[in-house]
């Protein structure tokens, strides 16, 4: 009897040890991701912090690293956001409202829904190809600010639609019933009751989609956002550059000084992203308190 108990005990101890070992292993595996993020941030800060001077924001890029800046890229990014945000908001939220409030459950709706989730998985460079063929060539917008902004709008639309749909779905049915009971039409209900209630969630999604857009490089390289722009775009049809493309341009130059400039450009980009994500989190928290 005693022998069996001993055997049992060693077996249990062994299983416990495996459990403990694997626990350690899982913690290590999880921390690798975290460590990689820290290494990335530290690496960039070390390389780029010295170049983070007023010159970077007030000067145009130049062939010499000394005094080279990213004024045109910074302005280009901001302009693109300003054009893209309202267009993608209207179309994205419009599509979400249609799918959640109006669409009848049927084949067409399922097709649209499936199509949106498939579009979200299309590589961003393919949007660049579409932008090149559709906006740059077919609509003859050339390599302009508006062509870039429209391409990016198509890229972020699926993200905005999905998040807006979630926000609208979260609005309780009682709110709609109350509005109908007061004699409101469908559209009045949607516009005056559902939408205001879903707005914080919708805006959070839009901000996150915008932060995805300002980090994208590949589609804009495709449609030919110039890498060397020594002027500020003044109209929709002017050529432009954005921060990630300026960074890519610096990164592809072998000199160490340009690598440092790239790192400082990245710091600016990450700071901008942090700001946007932070405001999205603030919005979300406020929203959660209200419900």
């Amino acid at each position, binding site marked *: 009897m005693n022998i069996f108990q001993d055997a049992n005990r060693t077996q249990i101890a062994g299983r416990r040890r*495996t*459990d403990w070992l694997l*626990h350690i*292993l*899982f*913690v290590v*595996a*999880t921390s*690798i*991701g*975290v460590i*990689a*993020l820290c*290494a*990335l941030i530290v*690496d*960039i800060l070390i*390389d780029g912090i010295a170049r983070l001077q007023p010159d970077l924001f007030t000067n145009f890029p130049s062939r010499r690293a000394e005094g080279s800046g990213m004024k045109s890229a910074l302005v280009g990014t901001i302009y693109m956001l300003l054009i893209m945000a309202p267009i993608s908001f209207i*179309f994205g*939220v*419009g*599509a979400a409202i*249609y799918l959640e409030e*109006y*669409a009848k459950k049927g084949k067409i709706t399922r097709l*649209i829904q499936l*199509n*949106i989730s*498939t579009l979200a*998985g299309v*590589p*961003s*460079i*393919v949007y660049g*190809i*579409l932008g090149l063929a*559709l906006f740059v060539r077919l609509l003859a917008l050339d390599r302009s600010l508006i062509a870039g902004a429209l391409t990016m709008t*198509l890229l972020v*639309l699926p993200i905005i639609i999905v998040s807006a749909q979630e926000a609208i779905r979260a609005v309780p049915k009682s709110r709609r019933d109350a509005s109908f009971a007061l004699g409101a*039409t*469908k*559209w*009045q209900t*949607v516009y005056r009751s559902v939408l205001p209630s879903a707005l914080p969630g919708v805006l959070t999604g839009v901000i996150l989609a915008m*932060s*995805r857009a*300002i*980090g994208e*490089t*590949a589609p804009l*390289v*495709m449609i030919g956002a110039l890498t060397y722009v020594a002027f500020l775009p003044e109209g929709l049809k002017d050529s432009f550059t954005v921060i*990630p493309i300026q*960074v890519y341009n610096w*990164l*592809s130059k072998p000199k160490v000084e340009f690598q440092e400039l790239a*790192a400082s450009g*990245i710091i600016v*980009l990450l700071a901008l*992203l942090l700001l946007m994500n932070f405001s999205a989190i603030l919005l979300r928290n406020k929203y959660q308190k209200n419900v």
Partner: protein
Amino acid sequence: MQSEGLQSIDQAQTVNKELYEFKNKRVSIMNKLMPVVLFLCASVSVLTTIGIVFTLITETYQFFKQIPILDFLFGTKWSPLIPPKSFGVLPLLSGTLMITFIACLVAIPLGLASAIYLSEYAPKRVRKIIKPILEVLAGVPTIVYGYFALSLVTPLIQSLFDSAGVFNALSAGIVVGIMIIPMVSSLSEDAMSAVPRSLRDGAYALGATRFEVALKIVVPAAFSGIVASAVLAFSRAIGETMIVTVAAGSTPNMTVNPLDSIQTMTAYIVQVSLGDTPHGSIEYGSIFAVGMTLFVITFLLNILAQYIARKFREEY
């Protein structure tokens, strides 16, 4: 006096009624018009897909008029800019697959382990901190990862292997892998969290350890979700552009040595569009043919992932 008063009341009523009808009319017009407008918004997404497919097909068709499709699909030499020109896509495909393979080797074990840790082991407090950090990893722009690969990972690899060049597939692959960790971990964790509590409780009641519960109960129950996340990560790695453009080089190369410089399909598209290729030239057509290949592969993988997630889901 009195009749005048009555008249003005009458007038007031008609005015009021007209106003009411006018307002009512506007409300009802809006009510009828808006669904149409909103439907148009929703159809933009369908038009995007049609646009993508149409563009790729027409331009690729033009390209295949000049280069036979079989030469493109099975040719082993890719030399689009330097004569003798040759358009065999296999070197680009093999480069892409090598990057993707390395990335999955990094991301799937690490992502899955993170998912198991977060869903089965981690205390709530730790989970609340780790999860957002991993999500940040997914939000970092790819050009930043490109910098990371070039300035930190490549020197590290070069110090380990003498034969590694400045541009090599290994460095780019590892960094793409790091980028898709959060995708694997968060999608797998969602699948694991959906496994009902009662299954775990049953196993614990039989004396199973946490690892045994994770391996024998939770992972099999969430298997479809885990496989789907892996397929999606694979597809994401194939479409990744900036990291490979910056760190993997631009030499189309059919090699199995990860320390060599290679070129992926995405990096080729970027290379051509950076140069000034005239519209209608054969190089210009080649980016559509390569883009079409890329689109078809990722599209099929995404459909496969959705199919797996739906078809093999265990219902509880």
